[in-house]
């Protein structure tokens, strides 16, 4: 792709206008093409994680409505993107999630209560990023994308083939930070896959007002990387394409953008009022393209799933939800003194004095 004479080098192929799909909304296998359908065991794992993720998500939504979380941005309807993307990661790879990606974190194996720490109003991001290879959830849009580029660059210097998956929304792709990260990744040839969950809305702003590109995946081409347009409600397709993109990237083929076409079925957060900006008909259209029923239908149709197995997964999901309710209710262990402990490696005198003043103030009541 290097060019020194001003002529265009070889460019990666344009993303398909039709999203890559391996399982149709009715649960039937469709053309394999360049992307193999995952093995039945993987398909079962995808379904299982989506069912558990959805139960977790519903539980978190309920906790937010009860005021036990400060806020909750729902993943409902986007499970195939988050689960398909995360299960494609190797253990040593890193995940860079946003506020929207709690289901991705639960799928990655992070303790669900720790996933909700920030959202319940604690002052820190909960889980230990190192032990799960998951960066803290990021709220300033697109600002963590370059972190993934730097991290994978550093990993390569240390002789590792660590790759990273960056999750971002369609709206976030408009930020300057997104463009800068795409460009750095391509120029440095770092193994990063940017998975754009195009759920069609950035709070109240529809995709048409966000981008004039044929697809968001097309953006990849301008940076000299591969772009894939995928059915984001087809967990098999997301998993297959992300796995392949990660493998290519790891082998030195450079970063990629994977755009997953999906939909945010719930409000932006529990405090949003979508009546103000979108029609129920659109929501119903997407509700009928549910990622879970699709995969369930496929596996049932092929005799790989029965009621007993579904019941077992359902019971596991219920146990997880009950555990979240119970532990979130427990003492939250918040201590104002901790606010001073991690601002610097060691608290400077000024902060130690402030801590003492606060303790005195609290003692006086």
């Amino acid at each position, binding site marked *: 792709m290097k060019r020194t004479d001003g002529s265009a080098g070889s460019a990666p192929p344009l993303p398909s206008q039709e999203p890559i799909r391996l399982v149709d909304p009715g649960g039937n296998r469709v053309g394999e093409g360049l992307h193999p359908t995952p093995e039945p065991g993987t398909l079962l794992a995808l379904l299982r994680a989506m069912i558990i993720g959805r139960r977790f998500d519903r539980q978190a939504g309920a906790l937010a409505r009860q005021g036990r979380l*400060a*806020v909750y941005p729902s993943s409902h309807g986007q499970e195939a993107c988050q689960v398909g993307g995360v299960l494609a990661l190797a253990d040593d790879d890193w995940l860079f999630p946003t506020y929207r990606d709690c289901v991705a974190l639960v799928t990655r194996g992070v303790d669900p209560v720790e996933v909700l720490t*920030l*959202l*319940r*109003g*604690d*002052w820190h991001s909960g889980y230990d990023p190192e032990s799960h290879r998951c960066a803290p959830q990021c*709220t*300033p*849009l697109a600002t963590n994308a370059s972190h993934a580029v730097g991290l994978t660059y550093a990993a390569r210097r240390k002789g590792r083939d660590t790759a990273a998956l960056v999750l971002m929304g369609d*709206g*976030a792709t*408009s*930020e*300057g*930070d997104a463009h800068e990260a795409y460009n750095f990744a391509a120029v440095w040839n770092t193994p990063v896959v940017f998975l754009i969950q195009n759920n069609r809305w*950035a*709070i*109240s*702003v529809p995709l048409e*007002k*966000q*981008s004039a590109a044929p697809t968001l995946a097309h953006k990849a081409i301008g940076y000299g990387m591969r772009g894939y347009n995928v059915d984001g409600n087809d967990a098999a397709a997301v998993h297959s394409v992300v796995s392949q993109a990660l493998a290519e990237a790891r082998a030195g083929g450079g970063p990629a953008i994977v755009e997953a076409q999906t939909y945010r079925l719930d409000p932006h957060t529990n405090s949003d009022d979508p009546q*103000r*900006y979108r029609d129920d008909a659109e929501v119903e259209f997407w509700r009928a393209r549910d990622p879970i029923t699709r995969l369930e239908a496929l596996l049932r149709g092929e005799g790989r799933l029965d009621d007993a197995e579904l019941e077992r997964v359902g019971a596991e999901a219920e146990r997880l939800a009950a555990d979240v309710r119970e532990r979130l209710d427990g003492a*939250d262990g*918040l201590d*104002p003194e901790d*606010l*001073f402990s991690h*601002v610097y490696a060691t608290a400077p005198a*000024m*902060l130690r004095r*402030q801590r003492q003043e*606060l303790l005195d*103030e*609290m003692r006086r009541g």
Partner: protein
Amino acid sequence: MAEISLARALNRALSDALADDPDVLVYGEDVGALGGVFRVTDGLAAAFGEDRCFDSPLAEAAIVGTAVGMAMYGQRPVVEMQFDAFALPAFEQVVSHVAKMRNRTRGRVELPLVIRVPYGGGIGAVEHHSDSSEAYFTHTPGLRVVTPATPADGYSMLREAIECPDPVVFLEPKRRYWATAELDLPARTEPMDRAVVRRAGGDVTLIAYGPMVATALEAAEAGRREGRDIEVVDLRSLAPFDEETVVSSVRRTGRAVVVHEASTFGGYGAEVAARVTERCFHYLEAPVLRVGGLDIPYPPPKLEEYHLPGVDRILDAVDRLQWESEWVEGSADGRSTRQHTGVGA
């Protein structure tokens, strides 16, 4: 008279400005159909059409950058940053272009634009939604930085900001959006670059702005019950700073406490304290004190009460102002019988 909230008054100011001047444009993230996450732009797109009030792509740097271009070509853009911390991607545009265009072009290009920024905490929001970023802006010459504390000022100052030939960073105290006052609109209050005395008192001046004005007034009321006669000055304009109003108050009272939500170290209060000290040194009975947030990242939101200055913390500071009654054995009623000893007292 009607009960009008700050959010409503700001909405009316935008609406009246759009009606009065065809060059006024309102845009940003979610300001159209949604009416803004705080509903400050509610109904404007419907009333004035999509070419006067509209949603832009999601990119703060380009929102402010395009506002620069629009203002260069005769529009009066009023852009919204959704939350304090989300104005930061636009910071380069603000510092390198918005603030400097007039000076770089020897006055030939002016930028009559307004950047609205909901700021401050106390609303129970998660991280990045409660920051106080005023000092970043006030440190930048060329910007006017103002912040209303009341619905009447919300209306009047926003109208004036839109009419102003200079760029204005308009900081809206989000925890006061829903506070109401009896008001008839349109209303014009004091010019936006003047501080005002919100409550007269003889013993000490509390200098506050934006979200902390109401808290300072509460503290003054509580202080009265403890025998302190507290004056409250609402700065309204942070840059430029109305030194005359502040200095004349402190020269009368002889004591001053600056109050803000932002972290204390390197905060706006340091500038105020320095200026008051320079101009009032001989009138002061005690050092000028600052009551600000702790010097930690904003702790959202379960512990925010420990971070944010409240009535008690303000009155504790007032108590530390070397009151004679506390040094003079047997002072009768706990009231100060202080006499100014400085030059010109």
